[in-house]
């Protein structure tokens, strides 16, 4: 990307009422630390005060940002505006859980200027929701979405999950059908994975839960893509669908485009000018570092040109924009690989770019290796 791009700002809100057994994002369940966290975040903001240009996306993720009391949310927002500048059309997303949605919360979010809500629905099937240990039911999800629509947020995104044990193609299609009935601007569909350090990961290691095999996973993936494309959604990233170009998630695109972003809060990652750094993961340690006036950074890397190349292809093959063909110039053997991938129906050429097909998306994790080395 040679043209100028605005950076994005991410704030990690590491609090949850209960932990979902599949989630490996960092969060704690002791809400009493919210004040410490808020104080720390405020200090962290000061560290980056003049180091980023005008942001055009702000994303509150977690954890469960909708757990924050309204006044804390307002205070956070107030300080963000004091420290950083935002363009007038900033995309302001907040992740919410259906059980936190009530009219006063919606008003509070609206008043702050939130214009995009991303709701963790996961499923419209109560059996699925119980398995995932979500705190809401399908009914509550429906009511919460109705509330969002009533509050007239510009953009609504729903997160769904497939590949659950016991889930059938038809039960998944029912969830998709119900999600699209609300006509949301954005839908994310994640295949359930059992990451090692999560409760599900441990259950799977002990053989107590069994996730669908590769074949089933691929069937669901293709089914999902076809269903949502049919409903007018663009399959613009492995797990993300948008109702038209104007509804792509601007903030997340920055990750995939390797645009600059600043991440605040424990475990958040930042990237600027070829360097990436990441914060301490433990909330207490994070807060202590800032209290002592130290940057809460756990690690930093400066990318070599080869690493930039690897990241460009590994991220590029995950999106419908694909990879600029120019990048393969002077890389012997890549033409041959491209020819094979085209023959296999995994990529095609679109105006100077190598773009993955849906089949290509399925194997996007291993495509970069073919162009590496």
């Amino acid at each position: 990307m040679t043209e100028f791009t605005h950076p994005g700002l991410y704030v990690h809100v590491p609090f949850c009422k209960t932990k979902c057994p599949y989630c490996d994002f960092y969060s704690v369940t002791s809400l009493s630390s919210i004040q410490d966290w808020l104080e720390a975040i405020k200090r962290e903001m000061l560290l980056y005060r003049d180091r980023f240009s005008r942001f055009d996306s702000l994303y509150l993720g977690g954890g469960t940002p909708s757990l924050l009391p309204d006044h804390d949310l307002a205070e956070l927002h107030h300080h963000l505006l004091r420290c950083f500048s935002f363009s007038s059309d900033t995309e302001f997303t907040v992740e919410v859980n259906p059980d936190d949605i009530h009219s006063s919360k919606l008003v509070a979010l609206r008043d702050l200027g939130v214009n995009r809500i991303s709701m963790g629905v996961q499923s419209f099937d109560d059996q699925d929701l119980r398995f995932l240990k979500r705190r809401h039911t399908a009914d509550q999800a429906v009511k919460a979405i109705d509330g969002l629509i009533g509050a007239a947020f510009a953009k609504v995104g729903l997160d769904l999950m497939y590949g659950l044990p016991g889930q059938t193609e038809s039960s998944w299609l029912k969830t998709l059908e119900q999600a699209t009935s609300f006509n949301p601007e954005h839908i994310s569909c994640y295949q359930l994975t059992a990451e090692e350090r999560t409760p599900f990961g441990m259950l799977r290691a002990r053989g107590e839960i069994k996730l669908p095999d590769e074949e089933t996973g691929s069937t669901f993936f293709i089914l999902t893509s076809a269903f949502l494309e049919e409903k007018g959604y663009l399959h613009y990233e492995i797990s993300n669908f948008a109702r038209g170009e104007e509804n792509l998630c601007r903030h997340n695109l920055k990750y995939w485009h390797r645009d600059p972003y600043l991440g605040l809060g424990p475990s958040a990652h930042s990237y600027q000018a070829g360097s990436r750094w990441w914060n301490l993961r433990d909330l207490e340690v994070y807060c202590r570092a800032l209290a002592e006036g130290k940057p809460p950074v756990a690690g930093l890397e400066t990318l070599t040109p080869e690493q930039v190349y690897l990241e460009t292809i590994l991220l590029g093959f995950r999106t419908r924009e694909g990879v600029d063909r120019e990048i393969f110039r002077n890389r012997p053997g890549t033409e041959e690989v491209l020819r094979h991938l085209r023959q296999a129906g995994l990529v095609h050429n679109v105006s100077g770019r190598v773009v993955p097909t849906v089949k290509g998306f399925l194997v996007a994790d291993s495509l970069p290796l073919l162009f590496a080395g």
Partner: protein
Amino acid sequence: MIKIRNFSIIAHIDHGKSTLADRMIQGAGLVEQRLFRDQILDSMDLERERGITIKSHTITLPYVSRSGENFALNLLDTPGHVDFSYEVSRALASCDGVLLLVDASQGVQAQTLSNLYKAMEHDLTVLPVINKIDLPSADVARVKEQIDQELGLDPDLAILCSAKDGIGIEEILEAIVERIPEPKGLPENPLAALIFDARYDSFRGAIVSCRLFEGTVRPGDVIRFMSNQATYKVEEVGIFRLSREPRDQLSAGEVGYIISGVKTVSDTRIGDTITLHSNPTPAPLPGFKDVKPVVFSSLYPISSEDYPSLSDSLEKYKLNDAAFVYQKDSSAALGQGFRCGFLGLLHLEIVQERLEREYDQAFIMTVPSVQYQFTLEEGSTISVDNPQYYPDPIAIASSAEPYIRASIIAPERYLGAIMKLCMERRGVNSRFNYPAPGRLEILFDMPLAEVIVDFYDKLKTVTQGYGSFDYELIGYRESNLVKLDILVNGEKVDALSLIVHSDRAREWAVQVCDRLQEEIPRHQFKIAIQGAIGGKIISRSTVNPFRKDVTSKCYGGDITRKRKLLEKQKKGKRKMKMVGSVMIPQSAFVAVLKTKND
């Protein structure tokens, strides 16, 4: 005056040869108990691990007999595999007698017999020794009967021993002194020394092990190698203890070493005769053969940047293994490499393992080939040991391949299984001998190509370890040869090409396709593996693509981790060979050599 005895120990595998040698070394007081480690003569790790002797070793044991006389007992150890039968024959030619070791519980076995024949060919005095008499299953009476009936030796002269417990060692040493004849030859005659081993020391050059039949050699003498007339000035002579021990001279009857600054390995050939330049012996000692490689294979570095290092290692290795030959080679699929020649398949495996272990090289080795002959329409005959140089089929008038006379000795009950195996391997003209009751020698004329890959292993399997195998080359015979190519996604993998008899082509092609199917990891696309002769596909297999490997989430916190994984995979990829867009692991090139159910 020290008297000399030259002898060797021969035995069926596992009958305790190395243990007995160790015990005799201990008995001679050459090594202190606390420094002793098992199987001293098997000095290479590889030898100790495989339990076979690859390079022969020699040691001189001092011994005072019961009658009070001083002796130097020269024990010549011999390698135990058909690939090295020439080395064995030269070592035996340097002896005057052998200890024939028989396990007290297992009795006479195939190799006991074939080894006895070898000793008898050289007119050696044979002392039967019954070992492992400490075993509860030992049956000395039965073994004595076998020694009488099957070996035709006097059972009353058999010495009973337990090398493990050190029983009977002195009796053996006494018998060597009493019954093995004293070497003949006169120190004042012109020098005639038989080279039976040579090794290379990077500081001293070649260290030649030899038996002096006539004459005397001293430092300062100018010696001549009679096969090529090369002359060198002797720097040092001596005998072998646990390490080399210099002496003023070596004389007729003695066994020892000569160092003469020989840096050209090809100048020291096993079986050659050394004489004095100023006073040469009129004729060389009999039995010299120019050992030529019969099995050929190419070596390619896994990563092309390792080519110089592989080249360097081969050069160094060659100094220690005169039988090994190599030259540059290149492949479209595998890049720059080397074409190598070996004495046989075990020799090939040993070179492979030593390059890997001692020289830390990682390489791919192609399917071994023999040397074929093609007579072209225009009249000339060419030799081809590399499928790359298979001539244009329409230009071939006739083709021929080397044949061997295979000799298999086994108990009679395995006749059916052995016949079947040999006939599958295109064996013809079978004959039988009954060297002893219940024991069968089967002779077959067979193409060498049929035994170089896995014949010996197969024979061991079908005879439950009782079959022994030996062969000699008997010349070329006309044969219908074709070149089999292997294609991966339409691209020829030249390193997998093979010249093969047309009757065996399909079988081989199917095997290679199956093996590659198992070894090549799934890719993003379907991989077709085909065997083809000319343009005709004769076998195929398919590696199905994987369907889904993508992870759902990739946000700010995932990118570094994903890139690191990719960097790791990239390193692993260097160990793969790219054929078009297909990554073929090194293991696939090895796996095609192995038949099923191994």
